[in-house]
């Protein structure tokens, strides 16, 4: 009998209001979820409606219907001359993201190894807080830093006063922006490993380099890939900061080929270029609605949406494999 006492139901009878609230809780939560799903699908639908209008005759459209081939394989973007090739933006985005991952990946992962395996505990806490702080800084602040400090520094140092706007400046700014994501997630990855892995490797006589390269990184690899892909997701979607330092030139492919006043590597790093997001920021609000020009820009928005969604699905799959 004494054992039953703690299990007894509360004696106070439920009031009707409480009962009602309890019963309706499920449907209210469901409603919230539905609103959220509707928002996401609505956004996708809107982008698809306006973006696909570039390739299909839609009532209200002005101008001609474009072919997928001329848009997605075209190298020339000059809408006033009726050329709508978006390859420069796709290649621009891929280059900038590739460069920034090449910088942020190793830097972030090695930082995480140091912090989780070698640094004292207080330093670990401090670094985590610093990383969280960095994520919260608005991107326009990074952009202003790039414009006011990084560009003049690069152009004075390497270029004898030519403007430094281009892939390198954008990749450097993006590296700073995505490093907190990469470091935080990589730290999680290494902290999830049993301590015995590192200790065992060291006990068998591995150096720090050997245990890191042969044991820790392979063991944490799926999670590290997730960290990098999420960093890429942030990099590909970033518009404001990149826009301020890249030079925004859609004709960059031809320009890179023709400019002969710099060596090839400097030409690649310092030719004013543009990406999917920078083109959207610059032109979307200023183009006539429902014109081919405007529709193609919406199609770029759709492409970005799908790329981001793809990277998230990819990380989900990686997480699934791990489990």
């Amino acid at each position, binding site marked *: 009998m004494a054992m039953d006492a703690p299990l007894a139901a509360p004696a106070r009878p439920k009031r009707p209001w409480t009962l009602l609230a309890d019963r309706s809780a499920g449907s209210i939560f469901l409603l919230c979820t539905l609103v959220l799903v509707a928002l996401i699908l609505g956004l996708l639908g809107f982008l698809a409606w306006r973006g696909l209008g570039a390739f299909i005759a839609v009532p209200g459209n*002005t101008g001609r219907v474009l072919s997928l081939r001329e848009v997605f394989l075209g190298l020339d973007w000059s809408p006033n001359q009726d050329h709508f090739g978006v390859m420069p933006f796709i290649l621009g985005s891929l280059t900038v993201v590739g460069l920034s991952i090449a910088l942020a990946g190793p830097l972030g992962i090695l930082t995480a190894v140091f912090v989780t395996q070698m640094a004292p505990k207080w330093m670990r806490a401090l670094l985590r807080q610093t990383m969280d702080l960095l994520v919260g800084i608005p991107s326009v602040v990074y952009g202003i830093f790039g*414009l006011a400090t990084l560009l003049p520094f690069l152009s004075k140092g390497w270029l004898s*006063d030519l*403007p430094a706007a281009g892939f390198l400046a954008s990749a450097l700014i993006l590296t700073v922006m995505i490093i907190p994501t990469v470091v935080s997630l990589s730290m999680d990855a290494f902290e999830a490993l049993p301590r015995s892995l590192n200790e065992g490797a060291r006990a068998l006589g591995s150096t720090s380099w050997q245990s890191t390269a042969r044991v820790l990184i392979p063991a944490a690899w799926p999670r590290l890939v997730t960290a990098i892909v999420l960093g890429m997701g942030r990099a590909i979607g970033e518009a404001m900061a990149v826009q301020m330092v890249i030079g925004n030139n859609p004709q960059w492919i031809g320009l890179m080929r023709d400019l002969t006043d710099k060596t090839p590597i400097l030409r690649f790093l310092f030719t004013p270029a543009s990406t999917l997001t920078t083109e959207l920021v610059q032109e979307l609000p200023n183009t*006539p609605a429902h014109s081919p020009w405007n529709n193609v820009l919406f199609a770029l928005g759709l492409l970005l949406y799908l790329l981001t969604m793809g990277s998230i699905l990819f990380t989900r799959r990686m997480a699934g494999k791990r489990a």
Partner: protein
Amino acid sequence: MNLKTFALVAATLGATAAQAQTVTVMGSTALGPLMKRAAEMYMKSHAGVQIAISGGGSMTGLNQIAAGNCTIGISDVYATPDQEKAGIQNNDIVIEPFTLVVNPSVSVRNLSAQQAEAVFTGAVSNWNQVGGPDMKVIRINRPESSGTRAVQQKTVLGGKPFSSDQLIMDSTGAVLTAATTTKGAVCFIELDFAEKNKGKVEAVSYNGAFCTPENVKAGKYPLFSYGHAYINPAKTDAPTLAVAQDFLKFITSQTFQDDVVPKAGYMQVSLAAKLKTKL
């Protein structure tokens, strides 16, 4: 009793709504400050009229007025033929002079029409080709959808394409920032912006004439365009349209044009009739 009160409140609200006319203005950020000044003055003398002004750029203004989403759409450029099909009507409200400016590192202070064209089409790529220092020409421009860029292409380049070797910035302010920090930079901006940034950038005369209202009036300086205000009679309700038309009449009135327009860096639209250069 309750119903009666409700009816009374509704009637009062209805009456107020009929009296207070709200006119929304959208578009060109270059014309925005002038419209704001005009709206303040107009609202002071017309109780019950509300004029709300927002930016977005010339094309936004034209898009929104064509779709009937605002009462007045302001723009630095003419509407496209498609937008005109929506039945919008143009009113020229001011003349906007534009000037070429360079970074102070460039010693060139005059370009002939041919030289200016060559600088922007890419035929000239070093300042020493037009009497300046041995320094690369850095062209700073707006995106292809910009009104300013359209004006420049028409007046300076005679419709020819820009050189692809250029930096592109999304607002006049950003163009100016880039021009002040980049050696060898040259760009094309509204006179008002150039005057407010004297010392950071240097004005360049065109065919020997600096951009001044006097030179524009005398027909010596051809780099300018109209500021446009579009209305859409088919998609605006009659009372609002009447207020909008009266507001535009106020802007083009002698008093406003003579007292306010020149101080804001623009020129009276009535001068257009006397100008030798046609827009």
